[in-house]
């Protein structure tokens, strides 16, 4: 027996002992059925990439909480289906979760479009639901009572990019992005924010989902000769746009893509061209928020990769849910709803707080920059890991 296997054996024995001890301590936990929390996740279809991180946030929390003995002395089980990125499928599955599987609690799916559709199921069945993957505020403007936003509002995603432009004296801004619900809600907020900061919009045009090419938009941006380019883009269009800007030799002093480069594998797919690109995140490992250090470490241990802000927001949604249950000592829907609507809860994302429409006002956005192949928080100054490197470096040929 070598050292490693001895240690492993020891650890296994220790784990077993601890398990026995925990089991004997809480005899009730085994007898009662688990508390089932239901959701859908887009494991296939166009949202599959980001949704994976979101699901991992839920899974980690459930794992950790069960290790601590669950909630109200009961184990917790996460029940989820693949909604294939399709809202109608998600509606059917949420109905199934409520009616057939009789889940005790609901949490939100991935994306604004799917949340907008399944919100109706939560409302109809009077089940409180925090939706951590809806950043557009539009779904909340039609009077939802049972659904709460668990993600920073989309208008906050560009605050850092605008502030950085202002601080560095970059006056002329070009705005582009994908013409779908979420990027558009950000793009529409930019003119007002820019005006406040004394910046000028010299170009503003969106391209369609599944655009066949970005060359024309890169040429137009070049003609507008901006100091800063703000692309409100997802992952594939961030890459497409980055390459088109480089090949057209567009040389802004600040280059910002809203959410594509937030994903940790952007550096791998974009290569050296990623360096200097700014992006948004709503969470970072160095935030001094509740349990954040534990969260990051446990995530790395469980999934052998780093969490992103989707993982954090989904984890935070369950933190709030747990706080509501622990406070009320019950699963009573009305009490949980009341708690979610009125209480400020510290989470890994910051302080959860919603206004009277259920819109999130507590969470904020941070700005990242890719430097030397890694992401660092560069804005706001209070959370800065590194100083922003500006202007954007000249393209290496």
């Amino acid at each position, binding site marked *: 027996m070598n050292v490693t296997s001895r240690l492993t054996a020891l650890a296994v024995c220790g784990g077993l002992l601890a398990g026995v001890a925990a089991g004997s301590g809480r005899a009730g936990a085994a007898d009662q059925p688990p508390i089932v929390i239901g959701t859908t996740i887009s494991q296939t279809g166009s949202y599959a990439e980001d949704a994976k991180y979101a699901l991992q946030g839920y899974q980690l929390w459930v794992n950790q909480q069960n290790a601590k003995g669950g909630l109200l002395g009961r184990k917790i089980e996460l029940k989820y*289906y693949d909604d294939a990125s399709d809202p109608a499928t998600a509606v059917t599955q949420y*109905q199934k979760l409520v009616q057939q599987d009789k889940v005790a609690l609901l949490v939100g799916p991935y994306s604004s479009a799917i949340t907008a559709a399944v919100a109706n199921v939560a409302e109809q069945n009077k089940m409180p639901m925090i939706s951590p993957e809806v950043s557009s505020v539009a779904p909340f403007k039609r009077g939802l009572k049972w659904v709460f936003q668990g993600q920073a509002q989309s208008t906050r995603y560009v605050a850092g990019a605008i502030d950085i432009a202002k601080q560095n004296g970059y006056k002329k801004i070009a705005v582009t992005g994908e013409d779908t619900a979420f990027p558009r809600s950000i793009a529409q907020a930019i003119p007002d924010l820019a005006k406040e900061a004394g910046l000028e919009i010299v170009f503003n045009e969106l391209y369609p989902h599944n655009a066949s090419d970005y060359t024309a938009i890169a040429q137009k941006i070049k003609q507008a000769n901006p100091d800063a380019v703000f692309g409100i883009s997802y992952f594939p269009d961030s890459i497409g746009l980055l390459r088109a800007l480089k090949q057209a030799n567009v040389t802004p002093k600040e280059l910002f893509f809203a959410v594509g480069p937030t994903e940790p594998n952007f550096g791998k797919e974009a290569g050296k061209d990623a360096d200097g690109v700014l992006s948004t995140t709503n969470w970072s490992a160095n935030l001094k928020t509740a349990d954040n250090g534990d969260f990051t470490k446990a995530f790395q241990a469980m999934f052998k990769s780093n969490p992103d802000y989707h993982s954090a927001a989904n984890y935070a949604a369950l933190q709030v849910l747990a706080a509501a249950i622990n406070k009320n000592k019950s699963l009573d829907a009305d009490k949980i709803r009341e708690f979610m609507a009125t209480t400020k809860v510290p989470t890994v994302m910051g302080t959860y707080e919603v206004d009277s429409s259920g819109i999130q006002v507590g969470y904020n956005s941070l700005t990242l920059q890719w430097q030397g192949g890694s992401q660092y928080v560069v804005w706001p100054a209070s959370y800065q890991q590194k100083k922003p490197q500006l202007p954007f470096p000249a393209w290496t040929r």
Partner: protein
Amino acid sequence: MIAKRAGYAVLALLFVVLLLAPLSGNGYIVSLCYITALFVALAYGWNLISGYAGYLSFGQITFFGIGAYAVAIGVTRFHLPWYLCAALGGVACAALAVPMGWLMLRLRGPFFALGMLGLAQTARILTNLTPISGGSEGIYLPPGANAIAAYYWTLAIMVGGVVLTAAIDRNAFGLRLRALREDERAAGTLGVDTTRSNVQAFVLSAIFPALLGGGYAWYLTYVEPNSIYSTEIELQTVAMAILGGMGTLWGPLVGGLIMSQVSESLSTRFPQTHLMIFGALIVVLLIALPRGIVPAVAAFLKKRGIA
């Protein structure tokens, strides 16, 4: 005879079950029945142009989208009742389908099929660019107990699809269409007005997705170009009609019922590989039963002398 009677008994039973399903008060059952009825009805609409007339279309979702937006815009901007808007959407699409069919039906085979797919993409982008549609932000409808109303609407259209197809299956119009499908030139020389018959079939098959799209908007309470002009819905419909049997009366019903159940249980049981299994299933079934399930069963029964 026995088989036929048994068949009608099963149909009657099925209809009663579908009619009474919402009384269970179970939202999941309503959703499941809604999705099934939606796809069966879509397959009946598709079957008219692609099954009977023989013009394979990948673009009927265009009319589905227009119908959905008719309801979303009518309800939120003009405060009309949703079923009125859905009916108006159907009328609008019928009117639109006349010139569109006249143009597009000059294309043949794969040109028509992919031309229609291109048309659907164009419609999606145009909807994005039209201010009244809310663009990519979409339109939110008032939340409420919409599912049951949308379900009965869809069920009625599904039954309409069966009745209409049964009529066409027997009358002279259906005969003309089938003659055209087998040999357009020969039918033309025999005095069939080829363009007219084909355009008629195209218009009929446009009305179905238009009406169904209206119900879909009311069911989802949210419309947005990418999830409404959905290639996925289009392709699922096509797959269902093919597997059941194109150009047959019962093909869309059988294909739709089987496929919606198979697809649901595949995706819950094999989340990683269900697309692969689904694709393999289509290929294997097409090779084994090139004309679909219904004609194969009919042939089998005939051989045994039961039907």
